[in-house]
């Protein structure tokens, strides 16, 4: 990459990737069918990975494809397979929310204005040696960011256990509660005196 200004190739690559990213992102949030939406999201992530690579973030680009476009999207697709429903009216255009988005668009215009005036148009100089490689990132991650690296394991544990806790079927619990009620009723019955009948044997264990 030349230091003085962006080369034409860079410009073209960025232009194509940025356009595609924006296009697919818009496609994601406007599609009625969730499967189309999630596929556009995957495409967005792939384009973003390309942009990351153009920022000398090669490791992050790989992670983006592996984790985002790979793992997270597979999770999405599985869930969509469970609950695939097309919507009748996909948009919820409440005035306050539309206003919020319009405010965001206004902010965008302002930011483009400010950013293009405030910051120099120059291309950042050549990246230091080894910038964005696994070795360099690993060095920072395991020295300065040791604590976040360790503590994020708690976060992941919470997510794993929590995902199971929330989504597992509750049939067993319902069965347990019903069995408890049933047992309770039988015990109550056992305390009643039935004329002419011997007291019911107290054997609640057999019932489920």
């Amino acid at each position, binding site marked *: 990459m030349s230091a003085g200004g962006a080369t034409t190739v860079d410009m073209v690559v960025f232009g194509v990737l940025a356009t595609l990213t924006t296009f697919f992102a818009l496609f994601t949030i406007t599609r009625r069918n969730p499967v189309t939406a999630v596929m556009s999201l995957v495409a967005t992530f792939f384009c973003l990975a390309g942009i990351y690579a153009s920022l000398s973030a090669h490791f992050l680009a790989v992670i983006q494809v592996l984790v985002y476009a790979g793992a997270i999207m597979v999770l999405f697709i599985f869930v969509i397979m469970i609950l695939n429903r097309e919507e009748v009216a996909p948009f919820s255009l409440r005035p306050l929310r539309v206003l919020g988005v319009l405010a965001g668009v206004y*902010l965008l215009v*302002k*930011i483009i204005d*400010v*950013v293009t005036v*405030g*910051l120099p148009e120059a291309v950042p100089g050549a990246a230091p040696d080894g910038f964005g490689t696994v070795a360099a990132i690993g060095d920072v991650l395991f*020295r*300065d*960011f*040791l*604590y*976040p690296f360790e*503590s*994020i394991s*708690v*976060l992941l*544990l*919470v*997510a794993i*256990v*929590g995902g*199971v*806790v*929330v989504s597992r079927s*509750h049939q067993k*619990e*319902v069965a*347990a*509660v019903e069995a*408890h009620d049933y047992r309770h009723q039988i015990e109550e019955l056992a305390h009643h005196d039935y004329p002419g009948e011997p007291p019911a044997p107290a054997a609640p264990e057999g019932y489920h």
Partner: protein
Amino acid sequence: MSFDATQLFAYAPMLILIGMGCLILLAETFAQGASRAGLAWLGIAGCVGALIAIVAGWAGAAEPTTHFQGMLVVDRMALFLDGTFVAAALLTLLFAPPYLREQGFEFGEFYAMVLFATAGMVMVIHATHLVSLLIGIETMSLAAYVLTGCWRRSLRSAEGAIKYFLMGAFATGFLVYGMAMVYGTTGGELSYAGIASKVPQATKSPLFYLGEYFILVALGFKVAAVPFHMWAPDAYEGAPTPVTGFMAAGVKAAAFGAIVRLLGSAFASPLLVFDFTGWASVLAVLAAATMTLGNLAAIRQDNVKRLLAYSSISHAGYLLIGVVASGLGVASAKPAVLFYLASYTFTTLGAFGVVAWIGNRSDERLYVDDWAGVGTARPAVALAMTLFLLSLGGVPPTGGFFGKFYLFRAAMESPQLHWLVVVAVVNSMVSVYYYLRVVVSMYFRDSTRALAPTEGATMRLGLLLTAIAVVLLGIFPGTVVEWAGSIALK
């Protein structure tokens, strides 16, 4: 850099909580039926252990010490709030087992999640780096989403959880984007101290303000301050009641702790506090809006759980006054906020504890009318509930009164905030009206149907402990403020 194992000792409370959570998860696989009750006791033991560790570390924390390359700090403020969080977790673990058994979804992961959420709160309050703040907030929030949604038989639980989750994750988006802006405009600083040192040059770029306010918006979501509060009533109503208490008390207190720390160090520069773009005026307006709207909505509620949810929104408003006063340089504001957080935590937990107590599986008794006759049927619980409600309303012999007293007195020291104190006092008086509605229903109306509350020894113990705490905070407020006041103010 060399890793020093003694650093770990300072974080014993966090490590005990996480370790005990993992132990519960392991024990869960072997527990069946009645032995599940033992899992809650494991959690309680963990909380007690963490409390002991906090007390043991108190003396050594007179001077703040930072660890892990400036990621975390140990100081008195952190330990004070740690104690509050752990006490909240302890009380939740006392309230929860009878409630879960009654509602038929007792499982060990619940207790582990409570401990992990508490560990997340501890991470938040010790954080002095945006990365450690983010991870703490996420750990706490993810555990809270799960706790909200884990009541699988209830449709409201899933609905509350999805709203809580979407709004919380939305806030995380803002948090992340804001952090990116701060990182770029400060020239690669992520630690609070580093950000504070680079503020003069960073403010040249408007993107820094964007980042600052995005971070504040995200924290506003977490404390349910007014424009960002819409998730709170549904999430609080949908969650299992002991969890509601835990969320309203612990999660809110942790987010406030983060706000106080962030605004007290990273964004403490006068360049950011004052003026039209300063956070002091913005937060002052939000404080007024939060308490007023929270109270107005609470008046209209007939559902006690929802009423308490809206009242907890209004309490966030009172707390914001303290945050603003502290930003305007009132030294007594920070201890006042911490005292308020402590008294509010116990009071809220107690109130939601009674709400959990009163219902049973077939009849939740959530409406004000359903509370009729509790005063004669169960005088002790009615007395406790009255105490909690009076404390929430800020009536004299309770911890809540002194919380408001210290807070408003601190705000009075700053002439710009007098109007806010007037608004707050009016709001407090209004709030007493709807709290008293419940009290009146309990004592002066005849019950319509027999009371069949969720009984449980641990629940009674929890209510007793909370009531004692609220009374003690009302009798010895000075001592607690002194503990809170020994916080090193930089």
